């Protein structure tokens, strides 16, 4: 126990745009702590000289030619959006500064 506390979980939740409080926060913090506690077993394994694997396949240089392809229609794009003001998708106002 003690890998993560509720403060850390709150911070991470803010990064992930999730809202957590009260019992739900406590519970999820305890679960994450348990899981991360389990993950600690990796620390026993020496890996200093091991290269990380981010792709299992040894593929490189997969490229496409610079050829234009059809786009979706504006109508299709706007129809997907929960709120729109043609020709735009709308969101609650974005404030550029946080100060």
């Amino acid at each position, binding site marked *: 126990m003690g890998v993560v506390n509720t403060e850390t979980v709150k911070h991470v939740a803010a990064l992930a745009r999730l809202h957590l409080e009260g019992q739900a926060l406590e519970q999820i913090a305890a679960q994450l702590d348990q899981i991360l506690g389990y993950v600690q077993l990796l620390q026993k394994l020496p890996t200093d000289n091991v290269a990380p694997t981010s792709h299992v396949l040894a593929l490189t240089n997969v490229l496409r030619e610079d050829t*234009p392809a059809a786009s979706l229609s504006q109508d299709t794009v706007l129809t997907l959006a929960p709120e729109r003001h043609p020709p735009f998708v709308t*969101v609650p106002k974005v404030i550029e500064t946080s100060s």
Partner: protein
Amino acid sequence: MEYESVIGLEVHVQLQTKSKLFCGCLVNFGAAPNSQTCPVCLGLPGVLPVFNRQAFEWGIRVALALDATVGRVMKFDRKQYFYPDLPKNYQISQYDQPLARRGALTIDGEGNSKRIGIHRIHLEEDAGKLLHSTDEPVSFVDFNRAGVPLLEIVSEPDLRSTEEAYQYLVELKAVLQYLEVSNCNMEEGSLRCDTNVSLRRPTDISLGAKVEIKNLNSFRAVKQALEHEIKRQALLLDQGSAIALETRLWDAKRQRTESMRSKEDAADYRYFPEPDLVPFVIDSNVVEQIQAALPELPAQRRQRFQSVYQLSAYDAHVLTQERTLAELFERTACLCQKPKAVANWIMGDLLAYLNAKNLALDAVTLRPEWLAQLIGLVDDGTLSGTMAKEVWGKVLERGIEPAVIVREGSLQQIVDVGLLEHLADSVIREYPKSVEDYSKGKANALMYLVGQGMKRSQGKANPQQMTQLLKRKLDELRERITGRVTE
């Protein structure tokens, strides 16, 4: 107190490929909002990116032109932050294995050149565009720009003044235009710039607290923001205050920078290798091929213009700043073999015209043949200098060749001496007062009469010829009158 400014620039340039960085949507400024998107650049569930070969090669081209070391292997990473113009809420960018590092760009200071280090160059996708409603608490999103290829070029903090920063940008823009990878149009956002600045006493070795400035939409804004920020920081330091490590926004309307966020609560981007794209090995053969195919760059062309066309350093500098301008000069010079005249026409009337109208060169229809023709018409005496200027203005305005304008407006000079004499005589008849003034020795009376004569000729008379003619006639007249009196 005197401080030294330490400035770095972060330039984002849109690569004008045909299609976007990771999908086939067109890269095309000015299309109807949300009409140039597809599942991939919209980040719909289930889509995957595939890297554009042209963007890859152009990235390498820019890196080589900036004398940078292209990495043996480059990879993409995800830079994660939530923003409504970022469809996936992460940007595919490059973190620890960028396209290239350690480049340089030489700028011409006051006669002495200076090498500005380039820290790194990497590829990434652009975000969409946000517009803000003025009467409702909503923002509007246009995703057309999302996924357009961007090259980020980060300089070392080697710039020491606003002027150097400005020159760096001008030179970088010229290089990018010569490479034909971008139109570098700041109004359209194809070239964007952030800067960071700190001050230190000349004796200090370590750098002061670095302030980043965003939202710089023109070279002028960069200049103004830096000037403002340097003053602001100097004032704080003079007062003994500390400079906060922060990001500030340039407010062009109020002409000041405003705090955006401090570095302490800076975003945690959680970079990690993009699993949907494989690594890219940059083969040394490919690098050699691209290197060999590099076009002549502004600095090289500047040298050549000086030696081949005998231009001054200043003329060569002005003429090479834009690739299209340099090409216009060179083609015209080859056609008419009068480089100095060509340089004068371009640097004088053409640039004045473009500046006055706030136009780019490619916004006017202009052929090298036309300028050569105009210079020829002046040379053979068909047009006076004044008339040529007028014709030139019409060429630029209407996009047609000088000879046509000359023909249709009968803008040829009056060479018929009889007609000129007739004009002079009529002026003398109609302005007896001025004639009298002249005979009394008032020299400016002659200028007045010449002016009237030119007016009557609708500018088609040669002013020197008109002056000579009027002076001869007036002198003759005066002699006759004086002669009568003495008789």
